[in-house]
């Protein structure tokens, strides 16, 4: 009696294990690798399924023999143990057969790999730069570039003990303020690098991930077949907020993409005076795009627009004289969206790596030093330059906030015009 029960258990366990292996083949995205929307991703999916089925087949043979033996060749059945201990023929067989299978597998894998590494004949290039913890995209030779941060709703729900539930956020942790927009049916070269630590740019639907490494530019490519929105995440541990730097790619038809690009450039032409200074111009435009789409409160939006005008050279529309209340409330928003990851909500930081702002010599000292730190960052540390990322108003607000909150009380009010002067 006991025996058969045990047998049943074991067979059950085997079935469960094999079932688990086989299951992904029939299930949807949640269980298995997505087929994706590029030829590469489909090829990879094909390789993945082939090797999976090979493993399942070998598994059935090996586990089958093993469980047959466990059931039949047990002492309690009164069997006598054989004493054989090798068989040259068998040993050669099970060395050669796997070798053949491996060669059969290596051939298609090589083909796909060769194809993936061929970045020639790209029709356009996008430079992707990883930052702790956001991405920056730059359309090479187009003068368009912008930062892409985790969206505000996820930002709110992700806090330790947040009252907002992740389930109430659409695309929780997989949504951004500014999407990377790419044309379909176009070979796009991606030049991937990093500003600080190593990140990895990964959108499963495109079929691959690639490391973003400081000092390296990794070239790779993609050609998306279907318009749509594809989501991914940073895939290389990059510090505290590694889990919070998503990637969203929006694929538009080439015509829609052209229109979108023109719109982006239009903003640039108005303000930065065309592409006069290609390099500096791109950053400015980036700021523009980001702040315009990023700001949820209308006040911020207008300021940001006006502000970009100011950066473009004209000081005509610089928003002077914000009230301290307005600065403090916007400052708190900016602080909690952009600074808390390192300096913490209470300003205590995580010394010695991330300094406390409460009572900090910089924050309680001369305003100019404080502005310099925020605008230009501190080379060689995680403190990045926020000058290109934030508008004058945002910097003024966050600096004012830091000087009058987080346990500091300097009474200083910093205006956007001060920031503009400090740039």
């Amino acid at each position, binding site marked *: 009696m006991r025996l058969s029960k045990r047998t049943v258990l074991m067979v059950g366990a085997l079935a469960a294990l094999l079932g688990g292996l086989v299951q992904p083949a029939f299930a949807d995205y949640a269980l298995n690798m997505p087929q994706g929307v590029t030829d590469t991703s489909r090829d990879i999916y094909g390789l993945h399924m082939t090797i999976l089925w090979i493993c399942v087949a070998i*598994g059935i043979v090996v586990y089958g023999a093993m469980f047959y033996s466990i059931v039949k060749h047990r002492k309690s059945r009164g069997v006598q143990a054989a004493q054989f201990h090798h068989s040259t023929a068998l040993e050669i067989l099970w060395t050669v057969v796997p070798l053949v299978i491996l060669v059969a597998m290596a051939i298609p894998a090589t083909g796909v790999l060769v194809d993936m590494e061929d970045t020639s004949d790209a029709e356009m290039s996008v430079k992707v730069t990883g930052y702790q913890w956001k991405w920056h995209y730059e359309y090479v030779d187009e003068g368009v570039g912008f930062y892409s941060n985790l969206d505000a709703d996820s930002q709110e729900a992700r806090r330790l003990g947040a009252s907002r*539930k992740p389930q109430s956020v659409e695309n929780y942790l997989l949504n951004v303020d500014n999407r990377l927009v790419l044309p379909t049916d176009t070979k796009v070269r991606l030049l991937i690098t990093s500003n600080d630590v190593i990140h990895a740019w990964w959108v499963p639907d495109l079929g691959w991930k*690639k490391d973003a490494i400081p000092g390296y530019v990794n070239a790779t490519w993609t050609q998306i077949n279907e318009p749509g929105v594809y989501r991914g995440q940073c895939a290389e541990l990059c510090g505290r907020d*590694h889990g919070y730097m998503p990637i969203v790619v929006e694929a538009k038809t080439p015509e829609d993409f052209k229109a979108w690009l023109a719109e982006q450039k239009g903003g640039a032409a108005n303000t930065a005076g065309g592409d006069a200074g290609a390099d500096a111009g791109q950053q400015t435009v980036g700021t523009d795009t980001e702040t315009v789409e990023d700001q949820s409160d209308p006040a911020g939006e207008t300021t940001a627009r006006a502000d970009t005008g100011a950066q473009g050279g004209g000081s005509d529309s610089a928003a002077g004289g914000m009230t301290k209340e307005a600065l403090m409330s916007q400052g708190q928003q900016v602080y909690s969206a952009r600074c808390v990851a390192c300096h913490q909500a209470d300003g205590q930081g995580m010394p010695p790596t991330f300094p406390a702002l409460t009572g900090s010599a910089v924050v309680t000292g001369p305003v100019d030093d404080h502005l310099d730190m925020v605008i230009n960052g501190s080379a060689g540390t995680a403190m990045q330059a926020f000058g290109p990322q934030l508008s004058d108003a945002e910097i003024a607000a966050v600096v004012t906030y830091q000087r009058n909150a987080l346990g500091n009380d300097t009474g200083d009010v910093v205006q956007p015009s001060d920031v503009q002067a400090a740039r």
Partner: protein
Amino acid sequence: MTATTHEVGHHDEPTGFTRWLFTTNHKDIGTLYLLFSLTMFFVGGAMAMVIRAELFQPGLQVVDPYFFNQMTTMHALVMIFGAVMPAFVGLANWMIPLMVGGPDMALPRMNNWSFWILPFAFAILLSTLFMPGGAPAGGWTLYPPLVLQMGTAFPFVIFAIHLMGISSIMGAINVIATIFNMRAPTMTLMKMPLFVWTWLITAYLLIAVMPVLAGAVTMLLTDQYFGTSFFNAAGGGDPVMFQHIFWFFGHPEVYIMILPAFGIVSQIIPTFARKPLFGYASMVYATASIAFLSFIVWAHHMFTVGMPLAGELFFMYATMLIAVPTGVKVFNWVATMWRGAMTFETPMLFALAFVVLFTIGGFSGLMLAIAPADFQYHDTYFVVAHFHYVLVTGAVFAIIAGVYYWLPKWTGHMYSEALGKAHFWLSTIFVNVLFFPQHFLGLAGMPRRIPDYAVQFTDWNMISSIGGFGFGLSQLLFLYLIIQSIRGTRNATAQVWEGAKGLEWEVPSPAPHHTFDTPPVVK
């Protein structure tokens, strides 16, 4: 070196704490290693529980992401260097002299030292949890530039790693010296039990790669404090070079953690199948080929850094090749069972589970070797599932199997077979509930090392966490059974298991303090 260098026959050993502190006896030191490893298994396990608690649902409920990263990093360092490696060294200490018919390890004082370094190394490592800036949080792989953002802990972590390395190297030297010098004259190399063979090869791997790790972390240290730029791109260095050096250590390291496990399983299966190991010679050659291949596959851990095509192809082919000798091993184990007369005591159950579940880890390893597919799998939960199948249901299950197998020899008492089986079934079921769903999570797009995740990953994470808590709790039963066997009443015979063959089963149980003062004769 000869057996006479060992102080044979001094019988007035100290008692109490000094006995353990000053001991040069291989059995005492083996016991110390094993108890240390068990402690670290629970420390690292507690960290895993924090990780699984945070991942039970999306959003942050338990810890800050920075602390979460400290937990994943420390969990790995503690489990690899504190639990798995010392467990194997402990088993080597206890069993190698007994298995080759030698009176003790060849270098007993060094043996004492190599153990006593470890508690200090881990006291330093664990103390970093309380330092400003916390414990290391950049992953156990210590990739720069991220690792350079560590706080005060940085030099302490590096010093602790140096100490662990020194300890491992001394342990490895001792194993090699023992195997070559302390064997009974009639114990020829090709008569050695497979556990001894696998350890011999492992010891060479250790000596080859631990200094490489030490070099890599020392370069990190000088980059941080002495203005060098080995890995700093801005100074003309190369952050990817660190990864190459690290994995040149790291890949052999994973075989360091699995080859002795192969050895243990190759001892246990023949015993309970009552049949000699199938293909002994091919097992030895397969082990040696795996060890060799382990040196030329390291970059499969870093396909995504952007290597030249030729490099990617080379590392893909070399990695796939490892499947051949590994397959030979699995086939040999199955052939050993074939037409045997099997019984299923706890050690055998764990060994059988090892064969089944390690093979699943091998399958996912083969999948990961396919470079284009790795561009999807890499750094996802699929990888987490893969290496936990080879390390938990592989290495750890083999260690547990070995402990149940030899425990009566060490303590002289049997453990409760019924509870042992309960421990087996609980562990095996929960460990699969814990790790199997992680394959799905990874394939569906969940990156590893994240404290929070998109809501579509919730279900499998919950299931995985439940499995994690269950697996963690089940190990308390293991602890209980070890204590029971130490204090036990049911005496074990010398042979302990009906089908057991080998020198270790010819000495009484518990094995006396000194054994084989005169070499035995091997038939």
